[in-house]
């Protein structure tokens, strides 16, 4: 598996305020105490996907922390030679798990990114791409419109025709990539109203609210519906508020702090009034951000307590299902298939949720969970990473696809929409377009007695 990229993508831009200015301002710069926790032991290196790709110190957690230290001391400025390495960080947090000294790298990179956004003037192309992405992605309604358009073009089979060169050039590269990664969509599904309330099957075990997301709702509406059904089947009364705000994860992980925090407040506002035991989410990236709301809004006197109480109720769907010891009022139908499970970074590393999805899949009769090498190495999706750093993302995606193919799996399951898109695209490139599904879809199929062939040939999507 030879990587095509040999280093991080080049970043264009310059330090705002000129070369002599300090890298960081005083708004929550990377905490020197956290930086000092790093003893330079290097245990993080083999866990870091960018170190796996490029083998250079600057693109390892240890190197990135060192750059933060140099920047904090004024020994380097917010130069592009420094920013490119922070930008290249996927935010996968595999290093946090690997670190024996307990360095909170996740907090550090979260503190660095807004600094970069404020203190580094990106090149105009980069700015335009990012602006376009963030004008689209965190907006569920806009996303649904785009998804419908994509679905129509897919149905009409005119996608190839639309790749007219002149036209293409008008669209920023990042959006073109987004288009490339779009899954097969059914217009009919997109235009149907999603149920806003589901009654539990059998006695009510608890009441939950389901987060529908932004990209998730556009490209994975079917996963949201399967989630609702599965929760209901397990005795949950499910509330699905309409017109939900995006949770802010994408912007948070890209350093766009203010808009991210605003979205968080919106979502909390929409959900907190609901009398529910848990707020359930089926996308790892969102779930991990939401569990952090308390910490992220800790300095906001009006929101701190509300955010904390909200965050405490957040659960990933597989977490919840695994913990529910419910005597299902029906039997699970067999789904004889070999499934490889990919650990989404924001589920495994950020939330520590590894065993639960596997145990949930283990309940499905006939389903064989095959061994997937490097199952918890990032697939390269990483929020908008695969849109702004396509070569690096593709290298990681190809590495993941090769492992999936080698595992002999017939299906790939992962608990994050971004991962599903990324891995699906990589498998397609490798000539092995295996179906990719959310674990909850498998459980849903098993509950409903859907034939496994429907999943294997992806026909439920066409």
């Amino acid at each position: 598996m030879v990587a095509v990229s040999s280093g991080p993508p080049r970043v264009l831009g310059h330090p705002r305020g000129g070369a002599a200015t300090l890298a960081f301002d005083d708004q929550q710069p990377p905490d020197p105490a956290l930086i000092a926790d790093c003893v330079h032991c290097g245990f993080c290196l083999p866990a870091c996907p960018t170190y796996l790709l490029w083998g250079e110190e600057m693109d390892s957690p240890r190197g990135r922390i060192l750059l933060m230290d140099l920047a904090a001391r004024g020994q380097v400025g917010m130069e592009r030679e420094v920013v490119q390495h922070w930008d290249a960080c996927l935010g996968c947090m595999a290093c946090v798990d690997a670190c024996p000294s307990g360095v909170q790298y996740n907090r550090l990179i979260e503190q660095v990114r807004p600094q970069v956004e404020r203190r580094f003037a990106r090149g105009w192309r980069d700015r335009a791409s990012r602006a376009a992405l963030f004008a689209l992605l965190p907006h569920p309604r806009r996303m649904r419109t785009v998804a419908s358009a994509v679905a129509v073009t897919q149905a009409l089979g005119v996608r190839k025709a639309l790749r007219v060169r002149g036209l293409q050039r008008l669209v920023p590269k990042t959006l073109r990539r987004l288009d490339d990664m779009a899954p097969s969509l059914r217009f009919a599904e997109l235009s149907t109203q999603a149920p806003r309330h589901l009654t539990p099957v059998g006695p009510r075990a608890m009441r939950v609210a389901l987060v529908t997301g932004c990209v998730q709702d556009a490209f994975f509406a079917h996963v949201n519906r399967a989630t609702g059904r599965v929760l209901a089947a397990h005795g949950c009364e499910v509330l699905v508020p309409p017109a939900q705000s995006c949770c802010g994860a994408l912007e948070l992980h890209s350093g766009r702090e203010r808009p991210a925090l605003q979205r968080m407040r919106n979502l909390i506002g929409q959900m907190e009034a609901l009398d529910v035991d848990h707020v359930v989410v089926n996308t790892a990236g969102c779930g991990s951000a939401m569990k952090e709301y308390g910490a992220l809004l800790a300095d906001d006197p009006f929101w701190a307590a509300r955010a904390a109480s909200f965050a405490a109720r957040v659960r990933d769907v597989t977490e919840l299902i695994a913990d529910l010891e419910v005597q299902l009022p029906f039997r699970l139908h067999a789904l004889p298939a070999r499934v490889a499970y990919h650990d989404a970074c924001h589920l495994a590393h950020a939330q520590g949720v590894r065993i639960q999805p596997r145990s949930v899949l283990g309940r499905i009769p006939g389903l064989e969970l095959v061994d997937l090498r490097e199952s918890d190495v990032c697939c390269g999706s990483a929020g908008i990473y695969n849109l702004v750093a396509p070569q690096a993302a593709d290298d990681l995606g190809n590495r993941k696809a090769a492992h999936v193919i080698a595992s002999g799996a017939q299906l790939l399951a992962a608990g994050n929409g971004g991962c599903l898109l990324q891995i699906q695209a990589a498998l397609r490139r490798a000539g092995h377009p295996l179906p990719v599904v959310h674990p909850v879809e498998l459980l849903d199929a098993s509950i409903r007695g859907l034939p496994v062939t429907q999943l294997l040939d992806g026909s439920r999507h066409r």
Partner: protein
Amino acid sequence: MLDRALIDRLRDAVGSEGIITSPAAVQTYACDGLTGRRVSPAAVVLPRTTEQVAQAVRACAEANVPFVARGAGTGLSGGALPVADGVVIGLSRMRTILAIDLENQQVTVQPGVTNLEVSKAVRPLGYFYAPDPSSQQVCTIGGNVAENSGGAHCLKYGFTTHHVLGATFVTARGEVAHLGGAVRDTAGYDLLGVVVGSEGTLGIVTEVVLRIVRVPESTETLLAAFSTMGDAGEAVSRIIAAGITPAAIEMMDRLAIQACEEIVHAGYPDCGAALIVELDGPGVEAEAFLREVIAICSASGATETRVAATEAERALIWKARKAAFASMGRISPNYYVQDGVIPRTRLRDVLESISALSATYGLRVANVFHAGDGNLHPLVLYDGSEPGAGERALELAGLILESCISAGGSITGEHGVGSDKACYMPKMFSPGSIAVMGRVRDAFDPGDLCNPGKALPTPRLCGEVPGMYRPHAIEVAGLAERL
């Protein structure tokens, strides 16, 4: 600053994607696992093949610029500390396992392959690579060769030098030699034997043929708790005297156990000293030895003995031990890990002197060590923000080292001399011995460009401590005189 011409030659050797010159980026290579001293190199090159390494070295040699090889940069003696205005040659991109020859029990790897990767590659086939330093998931084979690394299991299985059969070696002039090989008993001098453990000062290894060993049929791991280090030490002596060769015997004191427990939660008992004894071999043999070891521990005053019942339990016991150094970060803002060896029979009195020194200096010392071969790792804990604390910690560590030497031991069991302990070499070796080592070095690197200033003492580094006098090239050329 490097000469433009040299930078161009290096770029020709490794490609523009293989050379790093930006001032910010080269600073990330300024130290290895020993963070006390940092020196930024002028450039870093990251070759991918033996030929690229050779070309890079040739370019440096012809420009008379020193170079330092680097693996994963996890060494604890500053062996990969760059030379100012010099080049770092990083082997991290040469990380392919080239061949696995099970029939002949050999594996050929590039130097950037991590130690653990080798074992992982052959474990499913029933073999493993025996030397297992605690940093094995990140440290590289190239680094292991440079330091002659050991690990907990070297008591029974030996060190890197016992497991290296051959190597492709780039000399300090940039020529490629093949030392040893897959077939044993190469004619002539055992150059491979002197290269292993030479701390990267004789040349750069770019391919290594390693010997792999059968995974033993049975492994028994015992955790025994004692009230004092003395009791635990007594048990170790009796185990050895009984003619048992365990695969590993490790000891940790109360402070070390506390720190490890904070991270790993392996459920170690709260005690004055804990022993981990691992026995492996054919089933019956391992079981018989285990019974004997348990009896010896009890007879030596063990307050508790626990045998790992599953693979997971065993892994957890070792996880705690292997996290020992890094876990010090939890109980102290700073720490300095020392590496000294003493004859096993002197364990009790050296431990006593360490605790006396610790009391005198008012600095805590946690003890973790390979009790089976007398290799101590006292961890001197201090708070760097206190003025003078760092220097006192270093002083204390130095005195500990001197007591190791006077007990008939060594200044380093596995971390190497590097830049850290070069000045202690004259306390362990006579001027004649050091002169001989210097001559061996001169045979390989007459230009003193290959990781200069490491392993052997130099007057500049060591101040008044006498070391060999090596005239600088400028002096030799008669252009300047040392005043």
